[in-house]
């Protein structure tokens, strides 16, 4: 009887460690973009409430941002961003759904910086586009921080008369997410 209980105990432990995966999450990720074209005023905005989760075993990763959460220095520019370009009432959020393709190369137990690449679909204003985005995951004290810099080709998602002139067609985007 004792033997059986011991075996059962070990088996349970083994099964736990073999199947366990951790979901890292944050609701305060930061994303900012710069889409200044020929406009005299800079077209820059920041959103500090990026909702993101990823799974360490499968590399599945999601980012979700509220469009009205992007803050500009110029209140009128923010109004135009929401009303004229992003249709924020119709599509309140933008998101990225994908996988970190080389998640296995990240050792979550060991502090350090790891180069990663994420492949997935970026959806803005209801339109989706496949993207491959390079970035880094830094492990410090067991907590991962993800950083990525990439360009968003605006014309693929939104339309407006000034994109390509006063507004640059490539929005230089910087993403920093500290996960728990």
């Amino acid at each position: 009887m004792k033997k059986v209980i011991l075996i059962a105990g070990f088996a349970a432990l083994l099964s736990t460690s073999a199947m366990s995966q951790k979901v890292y999450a944050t609701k305060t990720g930061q994303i900012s973009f710069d889409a200044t074209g020929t406009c005299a005023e800079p077209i820059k905005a920041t959103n500090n409430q990026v909702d993101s989760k990823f799974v360490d075993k499968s590399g599945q990763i999601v980012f979700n941002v509220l469009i009205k959460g992007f803050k500009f220095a110029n209140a009128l520019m923010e109004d135009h961003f929401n009303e004229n370009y992003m249709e924020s009432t119709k599509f309140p959020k933008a998101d990225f759904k994908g996988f970190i393709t080389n998640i296995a190369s990240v050792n979550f137990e060991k502090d350090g910086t790891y180069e990663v690449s994420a492949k997935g679909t970026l959806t803005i204003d209801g339109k989706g586009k496949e993207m491959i985005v390079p970035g880094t995951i830094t492990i410090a004290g067991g907590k991962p921080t993800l950083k990525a810099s990439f360009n968003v080709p605006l014309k693929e998602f939104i339309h407006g008369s000034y994109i390509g002139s006063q507004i640059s067609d490539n929005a230089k985007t910087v993403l920093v997410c500290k996960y728990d």
Partner: protein
Amino acid sequence: MKSIFKKQVFALLIVLMGFCKMAVAQDVDLFKSMDEQDKKDKLNQTDYTTAIFKTTRMINGQSIENVGAGVLDVKISHRFTPINAGAKGLWGLDGANMRMGADYGINSKLMVGVGRTKGGLFDGFAKYKILRQSTGKVTMPVSIALSGGVLWNTQKSNTLNNYTDRFNYSGQVIIARKFNDYLSLQVVPTVIHYNSVATSSMPNDYYSVGVGGRIRLTKRVNITSEYYYRITKQEGYVNCLSVGVDIETGGHVFQFHFSNSADMNDRSFIEETTSKWNVDAVRFGFNIARVFVVNKPKEIKL
């Protein structure tokens, strides 16, 4: 027999536990949970309606809109003379009444403005937003603002003997609704107070109701209209009606319109418009609003 059976049962249980754990662990699907969260958020979050109108004035009167916090909105307005001047008088453009002013946003709910009309009419006002239209968790069908203004007449006058005679006050409740991306309407119950009136039988307070609206033609062009109906009236005057077009660019809003009033302050255009809407009275006018950011909000750097 019994002990082997027991062992087999236990082994089976362990294997089953293992499978259960596997099944539960694989159910973490972030894509699905995000979609579900989005659906919940749509119900749980409140979406506040923005840009009911394009600028803080309907045509002559206040609109529900406030200037953003820390933003200065410079206003230049002209009201020309009646279009029946014909080609010789450039359809009224030869003569003009003019107001220069500026509005400033103190915070997201409160704004103030001052201005001076040709000849020495100074006006000032404050507008406070008390309710915002919203959908989602908190539903509010309209936006409501309170506006209070003062008019100071420094023109030479035989009838305004005391200093205080030169002041008029206006109080308004602005109730507006954005029905959809194409139609917004507002209703503005108004009271105008005269410190001094011509005869002792005349009241000092006059009540009226303004209605205004816009129909959106393109992302940057609206058709607008504004009408003030006087409930208690002074004899010899008529109601003011204006129709126009708003054109918005990056930093400017151009408002071009036709109106039967040449005045740009609440008391004068609401209570003292002299001529009915006809060829002899209708005149062309415009407002230009240019927005400058004076106080930038703190930028968060990454």
